[in-house]
């Protein structure tokens, strides 16, 4: 650990606040009119602000909580720090201490000073629309040529009687724990629920994960989800699929979740509850009607493929309008919205290739189409799978769990999607992201040099399986695989 990450917690907390929301902050006097007003300073808002400011645009960035948004403060950064530290065998106080240092360290890149240095007016206050081209921020009104809604999302509530009364934690509050819960109940088997269930089990909690659906990570394919189920069980997590939480209460000093698995009903006593049942967009306080912006019942703000709302001068980006609520999508759509709003670009968010990962052990990453999505679109698909147990580096490192599966459009060598289950799937999937964006086909991929031995050789081995699978035709002087 670097020296900058090794200081007292109080100093670290003060530093984090100074970077993300200084206590003595005073909003600047607003300009008469901004080229771009951005509501929300998470990955989408911050990215858009920096991108626009670098184009010479006059930018206002409004944030009601911490700069950096969910990803930095309560999401990806703290959760991945926790997962990594938990695997190292550390204890919770040390893990949380490190988590705060890491968060503060990374916050420097998103700090208010850096934004100011780019000429961005930062307003730390609540904002709402008061017209098609005006926002009310605290006591002042900001007028704009264009606006970007980037207010992100927050943990979704659950309609479980009694849960609010007994108290529960979400991804935003789980990192405030003072001590390791002896028993932790996790409601929800999506990526974050599974990641944190596994991490707390590694820290020493007795974890029970309750998933209403018949598999974990409902959007991922069966074989990957089943490997995850077995990995959770292997790591001591009690997994309960097809299980709904009917009610919550306290009894004998414990929190009790009353659950149902088909006809079986039984209580589960825990010390802490983590609710992780998805995220809902932050739109309620924006008074979108005043700006002529239509809400979308599913994704928050209704946008077209160019991220334009029903007000042609108001755009949206990130979790507040996207089905895929990931930081990389937020940043990409933010850049896209600025380009479309000011540079006359016509960039479509439907054309984004989105690599994503559940940071479990093993990690599960995906990009592009699943096979069933391809079939829905009438695209004939064949997948090529290489098991990590057949990859030399995985064998040398004793990390043979998982597989690489590439989905290839039949009759071509074009890759339309991939699923990777492996120890470092989050890194490996990025090779697929480059390959697919560069439209490199299986034939060429089979011949592109990789380091040896490396986990990513699995990707190349899949391409070589493709080549072996093609008919061999004779040519002058010998045989050639086509």
């Amino acid at each position, binding site marked *: 650990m670097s020296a900058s990450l090794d200081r007292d917690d109080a100093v670290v907390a003060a530093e984090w606040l100074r970077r993300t929301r200084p206590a003595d902050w005073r909003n600047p006097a607003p300009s008469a009119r901004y080229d771009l007003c951005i509501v929300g300073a998470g990955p989408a808002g911050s990215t858009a602000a920096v991108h626009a400011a670098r184009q010479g645009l006059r930018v206002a960035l409004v944030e009601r909580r911490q700069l950096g948004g969910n990803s930095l403060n309560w999401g990806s950064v703290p959760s991945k720090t926790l997962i990594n530290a938990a695997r190292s065998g550390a204890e919770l106080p040390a893990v949380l201490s490190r988590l705060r240092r890491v968060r503060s360290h990374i916050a420097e890149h998103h700090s208010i000073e850096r934004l100011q240095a780019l000429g961005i007016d930062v307003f730390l206050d609540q904002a709402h629309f008061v017209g098609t081209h005006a926002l009310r921020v605290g006591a002042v009104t900001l007028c704009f040529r264009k606006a970007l809604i980037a207010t992100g999302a927050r943990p979704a509530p659950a309609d479980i009687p009694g849960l609010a009364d007994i108290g529960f934690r979400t991804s935003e509050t789980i990192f405030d724990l003072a001590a390791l819960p002896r028993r932790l109940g996790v409601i929800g088997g999506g990526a974050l629920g599974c990641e944190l269930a596994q991490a707390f089990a590694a820290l020493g909690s007795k974890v029970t994960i309750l998933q209403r659906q018949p598999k974990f990570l409902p959007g991922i394919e069966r*074989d990957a989800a089943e490997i995850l189920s077995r990995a959770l*069980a*292997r790591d001591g997590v009690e997994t309960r699929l*097809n299980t709904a939480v009917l009610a919550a209460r306290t009894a004998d000093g414990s929190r009790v979740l009353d659950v*149902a698995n088909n006809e079986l009903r039984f209580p589960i006593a825990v010390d802490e509850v983590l609710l992780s049942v998805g995220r809902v967009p932050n739109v309620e306080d924006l008074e979108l009607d005043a700006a002529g912006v239509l809400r979308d019942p599913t994704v928050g703000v209704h946008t077209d493929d160019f991220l334009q709302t029903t007000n042609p001068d108001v755009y949206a980006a990130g979790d507040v309008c996207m089905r895929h609520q990931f930081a990389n999508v937020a940043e990409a759509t933010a850049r896209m919205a600025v380009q479309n709003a000011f540079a006359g670009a016509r960039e479509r968010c439907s054309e984004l290739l989105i690599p994503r990962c559940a940071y479990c052990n093993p990690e599960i990453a995906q990009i592009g189409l699943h096979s*069933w999505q391809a079939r829905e679109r009438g695209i*004939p698909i*064949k997948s*090529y799978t290489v*098991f990590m147990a057949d990859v030399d580096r995985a064998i040398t490192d004793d990390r043979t769990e998982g597989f690489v599966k590439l989905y290839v459009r039949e009759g071509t060598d074009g890759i339309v999607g991939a699923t990777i289950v492996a120890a470092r799937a989050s890194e490996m999937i990025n090779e697929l992201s480059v390959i697919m964006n560069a439209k490199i086909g299986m034939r060429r991929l089979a011949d592109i040099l990789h380091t040896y031995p490396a986990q990513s050789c699995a990707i190349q081995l899949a391409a070589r399986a493709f080549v072996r699978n093609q008919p061999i035709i004779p040519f002058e002087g010998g045989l050639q695989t086509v």
Partner: protein
Amino acid sequence: MQKTRAAPLTELSDHDLLERLQRSAFTYVETYADPETGLVADTSRQGSPASIAVVGFALSCYPIAVERGWMTRSEAATRSLRVLRFFADSEQSDARDSSGHHGFYYHFLDMRTGRRVWDCELSIVDTALLAAGILLVGRYFADLGIERDIRTLADALYRRIDWTWAQNGTGAIAQGWKPECGFLNYGWEGYNEGTIVYLLGLGSPTFPLPKASFAAWTSTYQWENLLDVDVLYSGPLFTHLFAHAWIDFRGVRDAFMREKGCDYFENTRRAIAVHREYGARNPHGFVGYDRDLWGITAGDGPDRLELRVDEHDFRAYGYMARGAPYGPDDGTLAPWAMLATAAFGAAEALRGTRRLLTEYPEVCPQDRFVSGCNPSCRQDSGIWLSDGWYGLDQGLLVMMIENLRTGLPWRLMRESVYLREGLRSAGFASGWLEA
């Protein structure tokens, strides 16, 4: 007269080996059928209830036993009629202890009373396996005397199944139902043994599934290149065998298989190739695995034991649907599985079976294969073996060996108008369906 001692299995010719193992498997049906209800026990273990799927296999075995001279036609007809009458007369209602509902039956029934046990589910797929056996026996027996009653009852029982009810208002079919909580969804995704549910449901003259249901079923299929084999994947071997015990898929193709230039029979052959290749690679280093010693499927296995093989720790899964190559795999093999694939490749199946019988002869007590063995896991003085025998294993073996030897089950079912209609509704064409 002194009784001649039977020759060791490994010394028999292929013909004699098949005959003896098939005959021994059939004795399970003879031994573990209830004399009153005709129901057949799920396992040979003390107090085992009946499994309706095992009854489906047992019914299908009676014609084979007649043709092979193991049982008189009269006795086979009596046994068949007994169990069909049980099903016709048993309670169909939403009561918690009835035998069935909407023409479907509970997975496990009390051997004597025929009532639901263990609060088990009304099983759609196990009812389909029962219905397949009912249709087969209905085809075999003649339209005369008590055999006419078999035909009549078989027809009535099949027609009574309300397949559309099991759709629960959705495109796909539910996997089960319980009076306590309604329909069950196990999250079926991709290919598995459920094909037979759709084909029999689509062929019903009374409650036919809509044609779109088969498209919904196949929509999650994945055509995969696994270990250099192109295959419609499903992990456990039994999923490539159950429907095939009754349905001759050679040369008949639905839209998916037409697109892939394959058929479901050929697909099972490829799945076997994947399993053999997996056995050769043996990624976890389990004891015994080889290209000629394989057979990973659903079944009994060691439980609550931590295995340690070559410095690796493995969890033991107990009763589990094991699969290859994605897993789960804890070193447990189903000793019967290789031979059950004989109709798809006799040479490989027999070579593997002989290897198994040579290395681990204890897997076949009284010439009947136990459900599971785990050579990586030692117990007492030998390898881990499951207790007793499972009816599904024995019934499947009898049928698949017969399909290899004479094709009798396939021939009888090719004559079923309901199956033919089901296949056509699902979009199958060509081959014997055109005849």
